[in-house]
């Protein structure tokens, strides 16, 4: 039950055209080491799925590997817009499948329940339905009310960075869970990158090995995003990134990042 592989091997589990889900939340516990290796290998044509997308996703978009984005928030928190995301959308270079917290959460829950949709109160009356003609309505057979039927979402691959994992893929996340547990359950292939691999975690598990296909030891694998409490968000690096992009220097930043 030893599921350890190298980062190089793990990235090979992603195939061109896949829907790739990235774990973590905005600037916290993102799988940055995995993203670096993915860009090195150049696996493209990806649909990027993230509850919220941040620095790690902006690098992927800037590197040209993403054709489509599914998220409810793509930005760098107080550091501002995600520069490459905003630029590429404004240019029409990438497609956005508009999502909200509810469409992502209910969509994942639908997959986990084995049904095609879950009904939710939101969206009705917004322009979201206009740009998501694939999203349909459903009538409550009891009240006759119409709800949005949030369609099931199934990632091909989910990559989640964890502070602690075992060889068998038992995973401790410690909080700021976003929808990581749901992604790990819903995805066809699940890759855990972990700060450290232990025999027996002394904290409660968030994901059990049954869900996990591969475990990669990746110390500081979330930096410059945080991995609490091992290391905090590197705010200076976020600023450096934003300033590089503002000055048209994404490519130089990316080259240095890939050498890192």
């Amino acid at each position: 039950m030893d599921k350890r592989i190298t980062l190089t091997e793990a990235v090979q589990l992603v195939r061109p055209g896949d829907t790739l889900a990235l774990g973590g939340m905005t600037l916290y516990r993102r799988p940055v080491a995995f993203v670096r290796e993915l860009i090195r290998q150049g696996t493209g044509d990806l649909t990027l799925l993230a509850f919220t997308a941040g620095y790690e996703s902006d690098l992927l978009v800037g590197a040209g590997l993403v054709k489509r984005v599914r998220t409810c928030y793509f930005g760098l928190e107080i550091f501002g817009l995600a520069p490459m995301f905003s630029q590429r959308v404004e240019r029409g270079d990438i497609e956005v499948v508009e999502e909200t917290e509810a469409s992502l959460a209910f969509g994942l829950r639908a997959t986990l329940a084995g049904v095609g949709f879950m009904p939710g109160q939101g969206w009705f009356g917004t322009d979201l339905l206009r740009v998501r003609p694939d999203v349909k309505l459903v009538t409550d057979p009891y009240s006759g009310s119409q709800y949005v039927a949030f369609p099931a979402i199934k990632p091909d691959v989910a990559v989640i960075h964890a502070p602690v994992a075992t060889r068998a893929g038992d995973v401790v996340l410690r909080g700021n869970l976003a929808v990581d547990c749901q992604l790990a359950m819903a995805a066809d292939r699940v890759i855990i990158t972990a700060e450290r691999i232990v025999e027996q975690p002394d904290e409660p598990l968030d994901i059990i090995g049954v869900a996990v296909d591969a475990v990669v030891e990746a110390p500081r694998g979330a930096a410059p995003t945080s991995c609490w409490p091992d290391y905090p968000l590197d705010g200076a690096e976020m600023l450096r990134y934003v300033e590089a992009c503002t000055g048209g220097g994404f490519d130089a930043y990316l080259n240095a990042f890939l050498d890192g």
Partner: protein
Amino acid sequence: MQGLNQPATDYTIDELMCVCIARQIEDGELVVQGIATPLVVAGYLLARLTHAPNIAFASAIGQTFCRDWAPLSITQVEALWLGKAMGRFDFAQAVCELLPTYRPKEFFRPAQMDAQGNTGNVVIGDYSSPKLRLPGCGGIADVTAYEERMCFYVPRHSRVTFVERVDFVSGLGVGAGPADRPATGPIYLITDLGQFDFANGRMRLISVHPGVTVEQVQAKTGFPLQIAPDLQETAPPTNEEVRLLREVIDPLGIRNLERLSGAQRRAKLHEIIEREQGARLGKLQ
């Protein structure tokens, strides 16, 4: 020395906004912090340290319950939301269960808002070829469908935000949504110019901040403003409130970042992050 509860004369507009937000908080409530909203958190903490000691906090970052608090931070938020958490959930539970059930108080920041309180946080301009692509609406399109106490804040009141027509509606204003369950729309809005309600179904000025005129507010609003017949001047912070904000809640001035943009914001961020890093290294030594 001035009295603690006397009106302050030395305060900034971000401090006044924090105070107005704090005044909206009732003791015992559950309040929620969205992403990148330090002005709101400063307001919550001010309420916590004054009239509302029993509030519970939940945060988009961390997805926890807290009753304890810590000063505002940029790179150390997890020390509070995870380190001092009393309980933990995940974002699917939050969205599918906790938010629709508990209806916690939250202050949302719209990129655009019209007179009915419809909001947009997805794009500025035409959706298919936007002038500006924004991060997205998070959960605003979900929450506005059922929340009857929606609160908004706008750190820089301008015709960029307050528009005749929202380019891409991602939050429901008064009466929008399905016919059998129309949205309530916002009930409260605070900007750097004044406070507003939507009592008549349209955005209505109920108080102007000291030194601001109705004409100035109207000039910066892209649609005709309604004015409350009993229009007030916003009560200024007390000396104690200003002291709490500056010395206890937010010594680094993070709350003011939302008022800044571009190079100004980045300069302030550099300063704050250096001070945070210094403090952290100091602690480690």
